């Protein structure tokens, strides 16, 4: 497997190299994603390009491994260091595994920030959360509670048991679940962001908890798989699938009634904001320090906390009333 990954990674990096003729005074900002081919990150790349067009002297290198592994990302980061890019903005597959490679990048004077899924503070200058974790944690349980006036059993279908962001959101959700006294969170299961495993886990939840009223899936692969499992079980309308997903991927399931509503921040805004921040740090127009703030163009500015992390905006709720406007965008 690892040989394969190396082949794929070097191929994608080589492609990025060929596609990017080096211009002397252009700032080269690398957007490193969890894996190529995920709609969310493709949309973020669009936002990054938008920021680049606005800034003028920026070239975006959009890259990442072909599957969601830390090893693949380390390969990519090492190649980017060799290319001497000006900034790396990474959405990490592992909080700690990437730290040594990113430290090496910072030692060479490369600006390193993380966005979406963070790295440990010593491995980056700042981290841009798409939204604040407490707000997302509250949002995912609120989405379930909004459609359960009488309360009931709900379960969580997460990505992998080691996924940084899903774990944080679930933790935050558990902190505020006292505010929703009728909502009973009965289980947390892991679908590893594989369609077939998530589908099977969702089926398992419906079997284990016959009174289940909602499945909260804070992952775009999981929510689609769970919605399909609910539809196949003939429980659309009975078990509400909610959480975080993409409008283009969820449109069918909102129409079928398997999902009443779900939330996501705007990935275009996220890629845009990450690029703006990376640019401002790389050109020394701003400094990443606790309590400081960094401008991010049309998104306002991000205020950093004591670990140099900041939040972009609130998650946005999609349901049958607005999904048609967004499903063709991302």
């Amino acid at each position, binding site marked *: *497997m690892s*040989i*394969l990954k190396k*082949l*794929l990674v070097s*191929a994608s990096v080589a492609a990025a190299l060929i596609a990017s003729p080096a211009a002397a005074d252009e700032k080269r900002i690398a957007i490193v994603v969890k*894996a*190529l*081919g*995920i*709609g969310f990150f*493709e949309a973020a790349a669009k936002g990054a390009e938008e920021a680049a067009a606005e800034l003028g002297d920026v070239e975006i290198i959009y890259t990442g491994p*072909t*599957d969601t592994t830390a090893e693949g990302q380390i390969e990519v980061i090492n190649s980017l260091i060799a290319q001497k890019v000006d900034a790396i903005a990474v959405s990490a597959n592992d909080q700690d595994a990437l730290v040594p490679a990113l430290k090496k990048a910072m030692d060479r004077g490369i600006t390193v920030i993380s966005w979406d899924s963070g790295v440990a503070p010593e491995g980056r200058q700042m981290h841009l959360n798409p939204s604040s974790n407490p707000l997302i944690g509250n949002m995912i349980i609120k989405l379930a509670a909004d459609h359960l006036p009488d309360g009931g059993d709900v379960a969580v279908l997460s990505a*992998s*048991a080691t996924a940084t962001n899903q774990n944080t959101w679930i933790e935050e959700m558990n902190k505020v679940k006292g505010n929703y006294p009728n909502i009973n969170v009965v*289980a947390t*299961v*892991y679908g590893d962001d*594989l*369609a*077939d*495993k998530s*589908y*099977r*886990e969702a*089926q*398992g*939840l419906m*079997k*284990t908890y016959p009174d289940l009223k909602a499945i909260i899936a804070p992952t775009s692969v999981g929510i*689609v*798989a769970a*919605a*399909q499992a609910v539809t*196949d079980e003939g429980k659309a309308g009975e078990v509400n699938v909610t959480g975080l997903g993409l409008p*283009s*991927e969820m*449109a*069918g*399931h909102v*129409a*079928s009634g398997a999902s009443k509503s779900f939330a996501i921040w705007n990935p275009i805004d996220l890629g845009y904001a990450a690029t703006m921040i990376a640019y401002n740090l790389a050109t020394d127009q701003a400094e990443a320090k606790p309590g400081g703030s960094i401008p991010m163009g049309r998104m306002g500015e991000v205020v950093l906390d004591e670990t140099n992390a900041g939040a972009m905006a609130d998650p946005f709720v999609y349901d049958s009333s607005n999904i048609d406007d967004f499903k063709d965008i991302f």
Partner: protein
Amino acid sequence: MTLLLKSREAVLFGAIIALIVVISTRFPAFVAPSNLANAFNDTAPLIILALGQMAVILTRCIDLSVAANLALTGMVVAMLNTAAPWLPAPAIIMIAIGLGAVMGSINGFFVWKMRIPPIVVTLGTMTIFRGVIFLISGGEWINAHEMGENFKAFPRAIVLGLPVMSWIAIAIVALFYLLITRTPVGRAFFAVGGNPDAAVYTGINVGRTQFIAFLLSGMLAGLTGYLWVARYAVAYVDIAAGFELEVVAACVIGGISIAGGIGSVGGAVLGAVFLGVIKNALPVVNISPFWQLAISGSAIIIAVAFNAQTQRSKGRVILKKAEHAT
């Protein structure tokens, strides 16, 4: 020999029953017929792919590209369906099998004519197939609402109490059983894997036989590609990532010798069912996800250790007189 194989399948069958009994003590509803039918349906893709892989392994080869072949075929038929929603399911299936056959024959060609080791060939084509999915899809997903109702409904349609997908798996098991036990090609698989030199002397073309095995494996992977995408109603680059290892594991658990020449259709099916039962039971028995991985892994190691014990060749005395003469 037949007796040994039979008893070995019996042992595996017993292990599956024991497993189901243990699971039912923790989650009684697991043994409900509808749930077992559900688990079988869920295992159907693994059964189909394990049979193709079995043919390949019998000839001393290995096909690591099955999951990538599945994913590419799935993506192509899903895109085809969005472009031409009027295509009926049987036509889609024929196209899927055809595409799979093309990919399988690419593997077979390199193994046969170029004499490249199969593990290298299929590792390469596995990467290429996944890369091609990127190229044709541009990294985009094909989602449930973009697929036609016919396309999604076919494998789910219930016929005589079981979904069509289960019936397809059963039909393929039956066809494969006939192929392996009743045709010259089936015998050739064993001959080539058991002793390639001897096979040549009996007039069997070793390379051609291996080509046929890869072709079969590719066709079945293509068919499964359609079934998979239609069932989960989503197609993207990473579908069935790592599934090839599960397919090989099913074969190994089923007693198909990695060294070639030994194995049976029943063994491959039971190996797949064994893994299928574990995969379907783990979500309902409430075990930590970290243990789940360890449990799946241990099951494979135990099966292989067991195989190694029973497959140890005992040697055969062919000249009784000579033995006692000294």
